[in-house]
């Protein structure tokens, strides 16, 4: 049996090694091919000559704009839902369990389904309704940044709800009791004792969903992302370019594959670094929170 033991230890270790090898191989290829493209111009210029030259500024700008608007949609709803589940919902009741199940299932829905839902619900239903009510020609009833951000927000809701709920539940009962014993109402207890302690946890959820939102293409494909735009979007009702979609476009729609390739690798590198930086930031926050509150 000792031989089997050794074999198993070796095999499991090897699996880890293979996974890491793949990861480093990907990063290595991208870094080697993309590093040469990174320049000041690459960050600040727009694509030119049928996207075979120039930079990716509109895509970076669009990604940041998109993610910001998404956060505005996402955080109030997500955090409030987390507060409800942790503080107000009757624990262990059928309804609460059903809500939790629904949140989990929402997390399992393929992102392309969210994209199509966004078209159907936001653009054709909400957008058209808005246009009709406000007496506008096609403003809201077309793909635009607003609806792309809303679709991404729904996609990311489960992450924020769960991290918020967990962060809120992690606040010790003693602190709640102390607040109540001093004459705090439930609302004051939540605002002054629970939320400050849960803040880093909630922020971690926000950053994780931002980093995920920056990389998702399927939900924005039909809801607002543009293949190419000759201008920088100013309003949430404009279409926009986005890094992930830009990568897709560069790799499949280019008129000159060889000329586009360095740009493609450069763009991938930028997106990778962006999400990597966001994730590292989130992990750092969580570590800091654990240290501060001893958990």
């Amino acid at each position, binding site marked *: 049996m000792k031989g089997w033991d050794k074999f198993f230890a070796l095999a499991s270790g090897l699996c880890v090694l293979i996974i890491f090898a793949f990861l480093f191989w990907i990063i290595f290829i991208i870094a080697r091919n993309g590093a040469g493209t990174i320049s000041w111009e690459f960050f600040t210029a727009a694509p030119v000559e049928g996207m075979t030259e120039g930079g990716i500024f509109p895509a970076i700008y669009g990604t940041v704009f998109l993610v910001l608007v998404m956060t505005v949609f996402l955080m109030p709803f997500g955090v409030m839902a987390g507060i409800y589940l942790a503080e107000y919902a009757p624990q262990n009741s059928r309804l609460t369990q059903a809500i939790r199940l629904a949140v989990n299932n929402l997390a399992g829905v393929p992102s392309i389904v969210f994209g199509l839902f966004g078209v159907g619900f936001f653009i054709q239903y909400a957008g058209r309704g808005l246009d009709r009510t406000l007496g506008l020609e096609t403003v809201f009833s077309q793909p635009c940044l607003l609806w792309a951000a809303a679709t991404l927000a729904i996609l990311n809701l489960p992450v924020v709800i769960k991290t918020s709920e967990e962060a809120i539940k992690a606040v010790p009962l003693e*602190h709640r009791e102390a607040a*109540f014993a001093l004459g705090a109402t439930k609302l004051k207890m939540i605002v002054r004792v629970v939320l400050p302690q849960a803040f880093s946890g909630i922020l971690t959820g926000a950053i994780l969903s931002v980093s995920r939102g920056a990389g998702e293409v399927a939900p924005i494909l039909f809801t607002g992302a543009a293949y190419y735009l000759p201008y920088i979007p100013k309003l949430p009702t404009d279409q926009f370019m986005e890094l992930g979609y830009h990568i897709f476009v560069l790799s499949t729609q280019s008129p000159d594959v060889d000329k586009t390739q360095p740009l493609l690798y450069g763009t991938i590198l930028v997106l990778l670094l962006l999400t990597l930086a966001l994730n590292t930031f989130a992990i750092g926050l969580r570590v800091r929170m654990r240290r501060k509150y001893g958990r």
Partner: protein
Amino acid sequence: MEDKGINPWVSTEYSQPEYVRMIENIHALNENLIVRVEDFSLFYGDKPALKRINLSIKKNRVTAIIGPSGCGKSTLLRAFNRMNDLIPNVRIEGRILIDGEDICKKDTDLVALRRKVGMVFQKPNPFPMSIYENVAFGLKIAGEKDRARLDQLVEKSLRQAALWDEAGDILDRSALTLSGGQQQRLCLARALVIEPEIILMDEPASALDPISTAKLEALIYSLKKDYTIVIVTHNMQQAARVADYTAFLLLGELVEYDETRKIFTNPTDKRTEDYITGRFG
């Protein structure tokens, strides 16, 4: 009891029970009874935790509640500021009067009640904030914004809790950097700042070392001129040292309640004697 009877010639404006209540309240005032527990029972689901408790607590005295673990002493204490409300499936019968007012009613103002009846918990539980913010918490949630007044009241409470000399210079430091004994005195200062009438202490020294415990006991003694203190303890020496009156609870029943001296030297009930002589518990 005769003098509490109904005299129909006095007034017709009050219903009979109301009239009895008024007379009882006057009696209570005369005897300085701030808390009166009347036929109070408490159930966790169907399980009774307190069975028909009757006792009155005197103003400006220290009253200890002793008994073995699980006897319901903490539950009784937490009934005085309705902290049991936080636990689901708790049902009560009977009533508890504080200053003549029934606090067990559905429409009782819990915020007002808890500002009148403060509490110090078993484990020191300062908020993860600065020392100053901890003490000022009770004032800030009540809407106090005047910085000078906050400063003044925070200092006063810290002095009352004998913590000013140690913490007066480090008010901005996190409360979690204090020692256990200091944290417990900080929690006391936090409770004192909103000037309650009654302070409930739930085994406040159980997590403290002997020196910190002695400090806390001295503090309890000095506080009783301004406050009424009810302390739950499993430590009988502690009850004997700090309390004027002692109640002995066993399996949810009040076995005996008397002056501490009487309970510890000449208890009436055999079960009390067995407990304080260490035959069980």
